[in-house]
């Protein structure tokens, strides 16, 4: 393999080791799929310090290396996988990595997807902080990394396999100690609802990056190794872990006992969760006794339930359960499936007026095996159901399937068809926006998406700050960025009245920055909701040696947010031109339920937020002053080419 630094030149390895930032393996791979070259590149200390990791480093590299206007499913798109400095370390909860690339969904803008499981830490143990994939392979391949040795291998025999069979085959071939990232048939078929899977049942779900991976004919990445992540102060890092394990707070009790299934009942009851494709309301349409059937004790009461945790996670919000018999018996892993997360329970449950837990467990198996984003697929079926209810599509079009609310057999069958792109499933496989276009732009009010990304199961009518998050964040309609879902325990900031729309911008900006850092550092946001916030700068300092406090977190977080946004601006994307679904903001307002009569003043929220962070309130171009404050002068000339400077 050739060795380079991330600026493209070659340097002596010894000098680089001495300068290498701590918390990093110090290098990433560039894999050129068109000709099979693999090059090792050094990560500069500057890049690590300024952009941290995950989608921070990913966006900075892709901004430099990808031309504007690239076809997201073409050879010029670059698909990346990046860990953060806290991935694979004693930090709570250092289990995550981020997939990055140009999204084939969101008007061809920035795309990323965050995932837990075990792949992230093991990528570092195999010797690398990240991987970039360029070009398109002439035939299916997978990348095998065995402790510093990377090889592209033929995947002809693997193409077409579901994720479960694929992982079993690769484990058999390379050893049980491998960790695998892969796509299922949905990604191979370039479905925009396809995701990237890890550990069979963890998903990097959003932005349609499963289709990007499929477009490159890249079936899997397999990693193996036992290398140690260099830490600046290992003793301190371990002490902090021990200390904070005893300081659980916030969401910990619920997530530890139930996982996110523990919030299902409350979230729908209070109006935050979706009911009947966001057109229904909690108590009238999906009352508490129905929600309870797919929530908390009902979920962990399923036969054979056992908790599952990502790498070294003390919360272990996941779970496994047995469903070997009945109408929706599981076909794989000897009848053992993964506990559906809240998003899955909500999008296939209350969203479709379905209170049959066994059907949702089955759907989870289908989505995990075929490699589908459960948020997007559940939302798309909801759109189709409402069109069906209103006679805009008929049984003749839906392959004879009655897409009626709560029809469990129909929901399960259609999910499978979407994953395989069969029949009407082919129309729905690319999500709501494409389905709406293919069907002749019908049922516009039922199409709840922002720029092609389906809205997740959290409602801006209940948490108005989510309107800013869904509309302005570089990846639209994302609930795990923007921070409005939960104020971290220990953040000492005044809490505004959420329905007084003016005056929320400062808190929103701080939450955005905090969660940018959490995501880029390789941490799980559930840790941020379950342990005191001060653990974040302390752990970053112990691991990297860089002195972190909240002010530095705000600075680094806003820099990461800005580079992702700059990627979009260069593509000609102004988030203010994104569509705003009426049901997202309550236009018209619901007439019943716990968010009735609410119409969110998203314009005030967004305008004040843009002013607060120094972006033009019409073009969203960052001001020269704001770029200089973030040491991003390199963007100033580029932004001038887009429009006049503010």
């Amino acid at each position, binding site marked *: 393999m050739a060795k380079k630094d991330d600026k493209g030149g070659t340097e002596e390895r010894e000098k680089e080791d001495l300068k290498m930032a701590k918390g990093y393996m110090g290098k990433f791979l560039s894999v050129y799929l068109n000709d099979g070259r693999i090059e090792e590149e050094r990560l500069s200390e500057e890049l690590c310090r300024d952009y941290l990791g995950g989608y921070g480093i990913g966006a900075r590299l892709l901004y430099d290396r990808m031309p504007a206007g690239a076809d997201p499913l073409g050879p010029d798109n670059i698909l990346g996988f990046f860990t953060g400095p806290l991935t694979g370390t004693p930090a709570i909860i250092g289990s995550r990595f981020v997939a990055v690339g140009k999204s084939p969904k969101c008007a061809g803008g920035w795309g990323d997807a965050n995932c837990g499981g075990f792949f992230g830490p093991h990528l570092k143990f195999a010797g690398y902080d990240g991987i970039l994939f360029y070009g398109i392979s002439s035939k299916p391949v997978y990348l095998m990394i065995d402790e510093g040795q990377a090889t592209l291998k033929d995947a002809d025999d693997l193409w077409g396999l579901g994720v479960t069979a694929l992982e079993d085959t690769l484990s058999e071939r390379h050893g049980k100690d491998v960790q695998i990232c892969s796509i299922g048939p949905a990604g191979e078929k370039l479905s925009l609802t396809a995701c990237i899977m890890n550990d069979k049942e963890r998903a990097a779900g959003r932005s349609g990056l499963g289709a990007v991976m499929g477009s490159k004919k890249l079936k899997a990445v397999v990693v193996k190794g036992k290398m140690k992540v260099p830490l600046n102060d290992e003793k301190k890092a371990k002490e902090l872990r021990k200390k904070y394990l005893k300081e659980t707070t916030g969401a910990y009790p619920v997530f530890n006992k139930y996982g996110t299934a523990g919030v299902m009942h409350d979230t729908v009851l*209070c109006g935050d969760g979706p009911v009947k494709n966001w057109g229904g309301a909690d108590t009238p349409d999906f009352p508490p006794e129905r929600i309870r059937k797919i929530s908390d004790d009902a979920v962990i009461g399923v036969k054979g339930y056992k908790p599952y945790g990502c790498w070294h996670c003390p919360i272990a919000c996941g779970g496994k359960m047995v469903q070997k018999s009945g109408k929706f018996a599981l076909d794989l892993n000897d009848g053992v499936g993964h506990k559906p997360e809240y998003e899955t329970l909500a999008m296939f449950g209350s969203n479709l007026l379905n209170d049959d837990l066994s059907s949702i467990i089955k759907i989870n198996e289908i989505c995990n095996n075929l490699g589908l984003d459960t948020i997007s697929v559940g939302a798309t079926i909801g759109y189709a159901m409402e069109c069906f209810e209103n006679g805009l599509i008929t049984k003749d079009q839906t392959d004879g399937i009655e897409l009626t609310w709560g029809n469990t057999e129909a929901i399960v069958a259609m999910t499978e068809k979407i994953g395989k792109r069969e029949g009407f499933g082919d129309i729905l496989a690319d999500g709501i926006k494409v389905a709406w276009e293919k069907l002749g732009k019908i049922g516009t009010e039922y199409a709840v998406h922002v720029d092609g990304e389906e809205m997740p199961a959290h409602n801006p009518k209940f*948490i108005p700050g989510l309107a800013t998050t869904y509309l302005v964040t570089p990846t639209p309609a994302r609930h795990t960025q923007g921070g409005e879902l939960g104020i971290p325990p220990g953040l000492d900031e005044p809490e505004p009245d959420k329905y007084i729309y003016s005056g929320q911008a400062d808190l929103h900006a701080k939450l955005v920055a905090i969660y940018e850092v959490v995501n880029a550092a390789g941490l799980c946001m559930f840790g941020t909701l379950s342990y005191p916030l001060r653990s974040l700068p302390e752990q970053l300092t112990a691991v990297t040696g860089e002195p972190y406090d909240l002010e530095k977190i705000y600075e680094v977080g806003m820099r990461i947010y800005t580079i992702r946004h700059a990627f979009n601006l260069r593509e000609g994307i102004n988030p203010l031109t994104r569509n705003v679904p009426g049901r997202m903001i309550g236009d018209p307002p619901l007439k019943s339920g716990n968010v009735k009569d609410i119409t969110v003043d998203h314009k005030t929220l967004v305008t004040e937020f843009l002013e607060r962070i120094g972006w033009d309130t019409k073009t969203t171009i960052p001001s020269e002053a704001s770029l200089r404050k973030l040491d991003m002068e390199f963007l100033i000339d580029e932004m001038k080419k887009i429009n006049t400077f503010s």
Partner: protein
Amino acid sequence: MNIKLSYGTQEILVECPKKQKTNVTQLFKNVRNSHPDIYQHWCDKDGRIKYSVQVFVNGEHIRYLNGMKTELTEGDQIYVIPILAGG
């Protein structure tokens, strides 16, 4: 009188004086006395309900009733929900 207050899958009974009118504000003051460990998660040091906590009386959010002055009688179902993220 005792008023049943539910949160998640848990329930507590909060004792309130029978001869006096009770509202949501008074109820939470009584929770502070009887269940201080739960109270600290719901209210700040000044006794205000936290931003992340939602209160429902008989299935309806108190914002559609009389807010913290919503009057309560024996038999009312009070439900408290802290906002939590689900993924």
